[in-house]
């Protein structure tokens, strides 16, 4: 077994136990139900802002988009306005597709080398990472948005609509929200890639497995509460409303499973800004994607563009004057 995933797996398990035992054994409801969630949200917000401000504080000296299609040049040559945008509209569309449809990941191919008579390198369309990533992110988004039911009263229409759509297949009782199992399965898929794909396994650190196990833990405890155990949903809502209105309230009947779930969510929030999960913010600022390829048409300004010593024509001519004259090349000074 590999400690790169055993350690994070154990850590997530212990974190859950900590909250469960802390509540069930020691009665630390206030710690796990009030104090830590508040701290986690604060850490998330402050950390996120610090990180984004840090990025924004760095200069963008050059306009360096990765161009993935035909440039704007002659009027009769068709430009790829999305993959090689020359206007901010084009950049906007490119970013929309990047952020909402993972366009670059969609291009993914799998290379294979066949050592035989033809010795051919082949590239096949590899869509599973794209599908898995898309399923994971959208399921997570839906789950997150659905949870706003716990923080709003009355529950807004959009959240109710989302719940309706999420539960549209109408299976089971309570009705199955498809986003839950999709999230769990997609996360398990991403995890299995990390473990079983030799290349991905080689590049993976504990820091890559930890958020996956954390999210698996969150999804699993959430699903357990909704479908397999009887949790005091009224009590939970009282508690979450208390948190969001800054009138914390600890209900009697809510048990350790919920506090375990909440604690894992808190850990995820607090961990977010100091980890690779910040790709959520960073993708918006990536200079190879969010800039137009129009540097030849409109000058881009580098805020720290300093003067540098150069070898001038005069120095050059001084160095080579005789040879230039002899070769019949024009010179500025004859001697």
């Amino acid at each position, binding site marked *: 077994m590999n400690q790169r995933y055993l350690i994070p797996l154990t850590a997530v398990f212990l974190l859950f136990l900590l909250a469960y035992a802390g509540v069930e054994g020691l009665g630390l409801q206030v710690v796990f139900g009030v104090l830590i969630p508040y701290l986690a949200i604060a850490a998330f917000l402050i950390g996120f802002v610090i990180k984004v401000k840090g*990025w924004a504080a760095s200069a963008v*000296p050059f306009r360096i988009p990765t161009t993935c299609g035909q440039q704007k040049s002659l009027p009769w040559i068709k430009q790829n306005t999305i993959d090689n945008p020359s206007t901010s509209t084009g950049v906007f569309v490119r970013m929309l597709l990047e952020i909402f449809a993972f366009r670059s990941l969609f291009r993914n191919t799998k*290379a294979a080398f066949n050592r035989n008579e033809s010795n051919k390198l082949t590239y096949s369309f590899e869509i599973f990472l794209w599908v898995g990533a898309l399923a994971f992110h959208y399921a997570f988004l839906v789950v997150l948005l659905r949870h706003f039911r716990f923080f709003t009263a009355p529950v807004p229409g959009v959240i109710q609509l989302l719940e309706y759509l999420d539960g549209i297949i109408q299976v089971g009782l309570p009705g199955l929200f498809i986003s839950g199992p999709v999230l769990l399965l997609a996360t398990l898929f991403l995890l299995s890639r990390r473990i079983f794909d030799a290349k991905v396994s080689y590049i993976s*650190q504990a820091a890559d497995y930890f958020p996956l196990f954390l999210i698996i833990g969150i999804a699993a405890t959430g699903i357990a509460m909704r479908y397999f155990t009887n949790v005091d949903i009224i009590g939970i809502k009282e508690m979450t409303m208390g948190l969001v209105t800054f009138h914390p309230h600890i209900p009697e009947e809510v048990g350790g499973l919920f506090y375990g779930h909440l604690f894992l969510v808190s850990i995820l929030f607090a961990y977010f800004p100091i980890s690779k999960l*910040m790709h959520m913010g960073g993708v918006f600022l990536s200079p190879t994607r969010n800039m137009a390829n129009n540097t030849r048409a409109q000058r881009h300004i580098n805020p720290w563009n300093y003067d540098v010593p150069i070898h001038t024509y005069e120095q050059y001519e001084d160095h080579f004057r005789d040879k230039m004259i002899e070769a019949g090349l024009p010179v500025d000074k004859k001697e």
Partner: protein
Amino acid sequence: MADELTPDEALDKIDYSPRSSSEPRNWLDTTKSVQIRPGMYCYAAKPESVETLGLPYARNWNPTDEDWKLPDNWQEILHEGIKERLERFRSFKIFMDICVRCGACADKCHFFLGTGDPKNMPVLRAELLRSIYRNDFTFAGKLLKKIPGGKRLLGSREMSLEALKEMWYYFFQCTECRRCSVFCPYGIDTAEITIIGRELLNLLGLNIDWIATPVSNCYQTGNHLGIQPHAFKDMLDFFVEDIEDITGVDCTPNYQKKGADILFITPSGDVFADPGTYTCQGYLILFKYLKEKYGLDVTWSTYASEGGNFGFFTSHETMKRLNAKMYAEAKRLGVKWILGGECGHMWRVINQYMDTMNGPADFLEVPVNPITGTRFENAASTKMVHICEFTADLIKHGKLELDKSRNANRVLTYHDSCNPARGMGLLDEPRYCITSCADNFYEMPLNTIREQTFCCGSGAGLNAGENIELRMAGALPRANAVKYVHNKFGVNSLATICAIDRAALPTMCEYWVPEVDVIGVHELIGNALILPGEKERTEDLRMEPLPGVEEE
């Protein structure tokens, strides 16, 4: 290459599953020797070349030696260097922070596909630097390094000598081609990381000679190859004689002509070595034609006689110092605008850096082709036009008389050079030029052209002799696609618009796909273009019989 690997031996070595025998189980563990291996690395920069530009720590050193003769405070220099660049380059800071190691880039790199070395996966190449960044600059890294084993959890490590050597080895196994960046969901560009990585290495005088010496030459003599002004003229004179033999027309160019319409700048490689020289003859023929027919006055310059910019492979500052000559010379000569020849990284520099670094070029005019009236709006600020844009415009307006039959013996495919493809998007202009002067044209498979094109394996200053195993391994994906169209359509000519390609791809073809020639787009133009008053041509620019002539 007698003592080098044969193609079969090279192919036997390819294995895309991370090696376990010689590699450590965890890539964070560097081996003592870092396995810097002959055939895979370039020789260290000669101190004289480093001194020309006054770059730091010029000295004799050898990559395979234990002692790299580093300054005592080298770790501090690097730490400060990283810190400064995190502030100067948002790209760097973002790319250090947001990689999720999804692995989408892993098998997109030609060096990985050719060597199977896991550290040639773009993600790991970047992680070499990221692991240091995490340790020294991130909250999590600073926290976790206090806990035993904490660094392992995050994948961070200290700036050790072994880690430095590894960075040196692998940042000089990247050609800054940006193919991985096309596939990255966040656009993380390994070229950017390599550029900054090399810039950091240069703070310690750790350049390679195949970059440092061209840079030194370019700075003082005007071009990478160190061709002095009189010799530059001699070489062009020699081409003029050849062209006269072939066509009967004298194509003598202008040098440093004040008040000419256009300044033309191309990589010195086109002047220096076959088959680039034939492309150079193509330019001379084109300019003669335009002069005779339309009175267009183009001048060359021996001072600005280098289109390429190996400073780009050294540091942003060095790039700026070399590039400055283009505008300086255009200003001195009082031309209207600048025309640039066929080159790869040259065009990334011009397209994405030049105006920002050395502009504004307010002493030049917005480029207008006086023959067609076309205003090059896309170059309105830099005032520099790519010769393929220029020629395509001329052809489209019917301004060039082309005889396609003179290229009838060429069954062509086209290799998109990395930088014009992914740092510019010059894709259809060269294709239009090719298909306007030749009939037999076949594309390579879609996954290997346009924005997904594969590097020649020798770009970004790695076109040396001593790293031939690396270069041939890196060229494998390109060669494999060439071989495919060679077998399927009988392709015998690989067209390209990059001087490094013209230097590197013939070696690649000889090694992987014999029977395929490398040819510049403007060599094809030069063959097809009917000069006013020319004699009946019997030979192409390579002085080989024209199609149809050999039977007579």
